[in-house]
């Protein structure tokens, strides 16, 4: 669906033309049907990568192909493509209904009123349809952006931090709409800092750091990196074994991790010491933990690529 090969985007900033490498050899592949997450720190190049996929920025060198074509703004390639920007850069002088109709009409086909009404109803915007976008909250504007995706058959949807600064109720509604679109076959590419959300929605994730993809894999592979660890909790009063990594100690209960290779030794230790074992399960890393470990270089990236 999207193939980016060795993409470099260089800017010059300020009077002296200080060079900035927004993307520095980005390689990435999004397959059809993916819910693809782009994660990374601020300034890592996630939004720049998305702008390149959308044709809003041309790579300095390298190539980007979206559905087999080089993205050019306003081209026919965008039939079936939708984009929700991070900041509410909408036509603020239009009302909710007018904006929904306008964005839907930009696909060059007549939009029946019934479809607009249904989309507004689906996004719970009916009572606000005459409200100008300039007076809408960010969440409402994002719902307008999603409403247009529901009108047309969206094949590829780009979302730049769609739930940032939005209240939890609207976030749930947006997530539901995204899941629905994904179920209907849309490929979704999403930038987000909310890694727990990415974990809930995405099936593949790329971690971008300093303009490069440092890891690109199935989410399930990224979140099973710590299968060599067991999460344990037991009654403890005295000294702890040296291979046990303490995470929390409260009310006489110690919680932490034990390497899988020493699990039997640990169980033996608790039995011999007469300590009650309260929890013992294979530790599954969250995306957040994996992300932080990868950024800190704690994990061998080859191990991830091979998994």
């Amino acid at each position: 669906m999207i193939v980016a090969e060795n993409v470099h985007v260089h800017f010059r900033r300020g009077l002296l033309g200080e060079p900035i490498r927004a993307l520095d050899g980005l390689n990435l592949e999004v397959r059809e049907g993916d819910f693809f997450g782009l994660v990374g720190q601020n300034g890592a190049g996630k939004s720049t990568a998305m702008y390149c996929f959308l044709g809003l920025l041309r790579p300095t060198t390298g190539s980007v192909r979206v559905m087999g074509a080089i993205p050019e703004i306003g081209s026919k390639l965008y039939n079936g493509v939708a984009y929700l920007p991070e900041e509410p850069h909408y036509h603020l002088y239009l009302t909710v209904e007018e904006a929904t109709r306008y964005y839907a009409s930009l696909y060059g086909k007549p939009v029946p009123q019934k479809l607009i009404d249904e989309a507004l109803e689906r996004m719970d915007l009916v009572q606000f349809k005459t409200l100008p976008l300039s007076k809408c909250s960010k969440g409402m504007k994002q719902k307008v952006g999603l409403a247009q995706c529901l009108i047309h058959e969206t094949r590829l949807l780009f979302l730049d931090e769609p739930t940032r600064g939005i209240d939890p109720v609207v976030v749930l509604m947006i997530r539901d709409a995204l899941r629905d679109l994904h179920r209907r076959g849309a490929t979704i590419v999403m930038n987000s800092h909310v890694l727990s959300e990415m974990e809930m929605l995405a099936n593949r994730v790329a971690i971008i750091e300093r303009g490069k993809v440092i890891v690109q894999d199935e989410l399930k592979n990224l979140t099973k990196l710590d299968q060599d660890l067991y999460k344990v909790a037991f009654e403890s009063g005295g000294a702890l074994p040296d291979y046990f990594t303490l995470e929390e100690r409260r009310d006489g209960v110690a919680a932490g991790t034990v390497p899988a290779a020493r699990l039997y030794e640990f169980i033996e230790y608790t039995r011999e010491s007469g300590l009650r074992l309260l929890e013992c399960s294979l530790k599954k890393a969250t995306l957040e933990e994996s992300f932080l470990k990868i950024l800190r270089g704690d994990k061998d990236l080859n191990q991830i690529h091979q998994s």
Partner: protein
Amino acid sequence: MMSELLKANLVAHFAYYRRSRLLLAFGLVFLFLTLVFSLPAFILSSHVQAFSVLQRIFSELNGLLILFSAGLGLFIISSHLRARNLKMVFTKPCPPAVWLGSVFLSAVLVSLMINLVILVLALEVSLVCRMRVVGGLFYTSADTFAASVGLIAYLMFLAIVMHPVIAVVFAVIFSSGTFYTALTWTQAAIEAGSKSAALRVLKNVFYFFYMLLPMNHAFAKESERIEASLRVSRGEWHYAFYSLGYALALSALCYGLSLFLLQKKRLI
């Protein structure tokens, strides 16, 4: 598909014009001046005095219309660029050429509508005051419309290239009129016997800019004369068509340049 895109964009642009507070303020001033200027024509008993007032009102309103039209082109482009909402348009199958064309067309249609309102008002005043309807009213309207079309396109182009305030300053100071005045001064100095080489170079520089920069009125002398008397002979009508031709050629040039620059512009 193109007609649907054009229609969708035109509807959005008309909503912009309706709701822009800046344009609303400009429109209200326009309406106020129209009312104030129209009153004397109804009160004055002498046909000669009434005709003189009508001529002045008509001339001033048309002058305001040209300014207003230029503002339409400037405001709509600069506000969309500043709001950075074009990425919502161009990440859909709507080519920049269609969007830009729709902006130009919408501004021209609004300008034409106001132009017709002014003409109808002038005709009504003529009829109410029992004055003869003169051809100069139609000529001046057509000439004003041509000037508005050219200025809309020119200000649209400037709004894409630079900040709107700088665009206004540029349009006012770096106009063909400024360089024409400078050209006549240097010409006069040379004819008075100055042998300065620098003056001759300056004359060529002024001439170059005079030719390069667009004119508000392609046939300013003829138009001014007709506007002053509101009388037009059959042989003078072609100036209005030439003016329109000039405006359309200027618009095509500005449109092409604007489109090229818009596609190069970083819209993120």
